[in-house]
């Protein structure tokens, strides 16, 4: 065998080896099962947002305001630099896969509250090189350890919901009244909704839930007795970009009670 043939055979063998390994990974039955079995966390927390129960736009503004104040979120006008934990989107932006031409005007006009979905299989966690973003085993909250974030923004590219914001500027300059109970972030760090983990630890519900006047429900997704599961069993509810297989845990009741 001459040198040329030896190199050819070696290269082909290597290619075949790599290809079969990745094919096995893609078709691995465990992975497919895991993607439809729900959250690996024992007490996965989730949210149900009932758009019909928002009586006024003020309530929605109050919800956002409560979150902003609780977490020292900078208010930056420049849309390229803005930081958002919970905000509103139009239906076609929030649910691009299930929008249609003749959508009712009512739904078209509604501001849908969107936030981190604390996915069962979060893409952001998979790509984080420092494990600054991780999924809590106990309650499935996708949490960030800002001490570890190196600002690479892989998570922002991975998240299909745009739930993550990067601090392009020093956020302290854009916070009117700093809430001393919660840290701010610093320039060069990514941030997102944490399901108010600091409030849950004190036995409180998330700030947005408290401010929503009952339109946002919160609880354990794997507990059939929970408030969220009761609401989901009574109503037709959807999640955002379900087909991506991330397993979002924020559900939306769009049509109201009569759709049960």
């Amino acid at each position, binding site marked *: 065998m001459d040198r040329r043939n030896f190199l050819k055979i070696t290269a082909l063998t290597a290619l075949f080896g790599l290809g079969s390994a990745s094919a096995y990974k893609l078709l691995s039955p465990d992975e497919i099962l895991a993607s439809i079995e729900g959250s690996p966390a024992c007490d996965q927390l989730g949210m149900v947002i009932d758009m019909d129960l928002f009586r006024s736009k003020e309530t929605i503004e109050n919800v956002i305001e409560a979150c902003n104040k609780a977490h020292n979120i900078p208010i930056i006008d420049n849309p390229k630099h803005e930081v958002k934990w919970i905000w509103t989107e139009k239906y076609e932006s929030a649910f691009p896969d299930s929008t249609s031409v003749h959508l009712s005007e009512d739904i078209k006009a509604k501001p849908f509250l969107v936030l981190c979905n604390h996915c069962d299989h979060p893409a952001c966690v998979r790509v984080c090189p420092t494990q600054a973003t991780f999924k809590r085993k106990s309650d499935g909250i996708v949490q960030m350890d800002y001490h570890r974030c190196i600002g690479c923004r892989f998570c922002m590219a991975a998240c299909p919901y745009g739930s993550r914001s990067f601090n392009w500027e020093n956020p302290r300059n854009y916070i009117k009244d700093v809430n*001393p109970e919660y840290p701010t972030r610093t320039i060069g760090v990514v941030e997102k909704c944490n399901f108010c*983990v600091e409030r*849950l630890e004190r*036995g409180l519900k998330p700030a947005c839930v408290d401010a929503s006047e009952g339109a946002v429900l919160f609880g354990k997704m794997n507990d059939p007795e929970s408030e969220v599961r009761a609401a989901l069993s009574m109503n037709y509810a959807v999640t955002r970009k379900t087909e991506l297989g991330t397993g979002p845990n924020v559900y939306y009741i769009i049509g109201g009670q009569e759709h049960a």
Partner: protein
Amino acid sequence: MMIFGKKLNLGVSLRNLGVSLRLIVGVVLMLAALSLSCSKESALGPKPSLDTPAINAMTNKQCVKPAAYMRSNHMTMLNDWRDTVVRGGDRNLGEIDGVIYEKSLQHTCLKCHSNPTEFCDKCHSYASVKVYCWDCHVKPKSEDVNSPKSEDVQSPKSEDVQSPKSEDVKSSNESSDFKSIKQDGQKVEDTKGGEK
């Protein structure tokens, strides 16, 4: 008189003796002053202030660990707290002298050491070690710490989250409104009870 093979004329030396003596006395005095100031600095170092309302009110002035341990290990302890709280969800530091403490820079350390400028910065400036805690964590202004946090910083129902007033920190059993926390982040019991 022979010194180092040189013959010195005592008569001449005596003439300069007054000058030499004054010189020697001056040098000795200067050295004494210098060594005194050095020993003073090394023995005492910078003096971080413990004069805060919360600490003054304590009968047993005791930190969560002995002062010597804190002096040499507070940085590793804080790193350990950071990891166990953020990544493990475990805030419970346990009970010390009948007081339940929480692993928290904001809610535990700063409740007593409400004067970080007079406390942390004293040694850190002296040792030229930059404290980057305050890049994110909110450094309390000494005067703000004594007053309860204003209601408007939290959502309507969130008064419960607010820090205890400094009076609460003082007395042992009702020292904090911190509730015991289980690993899974759910509330287990309310140590103060009836507060919500």
